[in-house]
């Protein structure tokens, strides 16, 4: 079966799972894309290197990257894109084989297939966690920058006398407020954040 055909199948399957998890209607197609792309990565790597666990790990990483990207552009929590996407990767087949082996009282086979299932689950969560924590670090860094910017804005306001006569504590509170606003702009409204930093010069 060609890769393109498998991509289409995975696309449709992921959208089906997405409906099952009540994903908002406007993000269905993107969820499907994330899942299909993740599965295709899994498929190609699995065929090349013949290792389900490594393929799952890399596919989960790619999936997390796509999910984060979509989460930014669509202003949705990234779970919306990732949860339906990981279902095709989940070790359902391995769990089924484990159960069959236990039924046949073939316990060594059960241990073998069962540990494969656990390794696949670990690979998925490991892949997701690595990408997500690197991204969280980068975001924190950007938040710190936004905080510095907020202090600058407040200082400028004070100089121009727009900030009224505030004592130190109130100034601190104002800065905190501006910081939060800045942070939200930074995280979710990329383009607006750029506009904002442009306007900063005018203040």
């Amino acid at each position, binding site marked *: 079966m060609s890769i393109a055909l498998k991509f289409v199948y995975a696309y449709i*399957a992921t959208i*089906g799972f997405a409906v099952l998890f*009540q994903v908002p209607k406007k993000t269905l197609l993107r969820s499907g894309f994330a899942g299909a792309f993740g599965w295709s990565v899994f498929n190609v790597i699995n065929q090349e290197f013949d290792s389900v666990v490594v393929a799952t790990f890399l596919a989960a990483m790619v999936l997390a990257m796509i999910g984060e990207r979509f989460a930014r552009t669509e202003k949705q929590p990234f779970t919306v894109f990732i949860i339906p996407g990981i*279902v095709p990767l989940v070790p359902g087949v391995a*769990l089924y084989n484990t159960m*069959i082996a236990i039924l046949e009282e073939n316990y060594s086979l059960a241990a073998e297939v069962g540990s494969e299932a656990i390794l696949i*689950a670990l690979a998925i*969560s490991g892949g997701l966690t690595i990408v*997500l924590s690197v991204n969280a670090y980068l975001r924190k860094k950007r938040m710190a920058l936004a905080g510095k910017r907020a202090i600058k804005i407040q200082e400028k306001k004070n100089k121009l006398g727009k900030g009224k006569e505030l004592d130190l504590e109130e100034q601190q509170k104002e800065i*905190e407020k501006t910081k939060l606003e800045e942070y939200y702009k930074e995280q979710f409204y990329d383009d607006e954040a750029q506009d904002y930093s442009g306007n900063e010069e005018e203040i």
Partner: protein
Amino acid sequence: MDEKALEELRESIRKEVKEAMHEEHALATRQKEILIMAIYAAEIMVRNGSETYRVEDTIMRICKSEGLDYVEALVTPTGILVSIDQSHSSQHHMLTFNKRIQNRMINLEKVSEVNDFSRRFVVKEMSVEQGMQRLREIDDKAFPYPISTQALSAGVASGFFVLLVGANFLEFISALLSTIIMTFVLGVLIKREFSYFFAHLSGGMIAASLAIFASNLHPDIRMNLVIIGGIMVMVPGVAITNGLRDTIAGDLMSGIIRGVEAVIIAVSIAFGVGFVLNIWNVAQRFL
């Protein structure tokens, strides 16, 4: 000092104390309102399958945007605990709220909506009362997709999934049909508030029975693939993955709770499927 001046002084002191008490009361009421709203938002998120850190983050943001400096939130899939106060240094007005969460499901639309709400609330687009009203609206919202649509899409998903793992056209059709029936029954059982164990046990039994039935209709239909198609829809992959992710992130309690939930679901599916397969194996000897 004469009597009259003394009386005036007393009067003014009384007035001041009264005003101060009034202020303090207003402050406490406002704090309570904010706390109740934050908890409500968190409750909706946890009940609909959000990750732990996102819920804690939302509580922190909502409270801090209203000027409450001291916020401690402990979120697990079974309960939420939040303490707030005005400032770190003096904790005289400490408020703590505890919310038990009974049942959980996955409804990502609501998670997304509360997430959006918290973003709007933090940039002061609405007051606390308006926020509370918005949260009630979100909470009362029906599922975006009814059970019939869910069953249909689960069927499609499982059909195309078995195609991915190498099924033929007949297996595709039988996985599609059997999963539609199974998901519909599962949805009804969960809606009627049967326990997770019972619902997934029944799901596993139905999947296995229908797969046996289908494999006897035509020799090309492999029973294994049809069962896998059915259980893919139920498999607690999300719970396993989220549990492991919580554990790696350091939310050990949530991780363990989710992990146990996943194991229970997996065991109940295996029970259902295994039970039917075993009976079928025994019955075949007599047929």
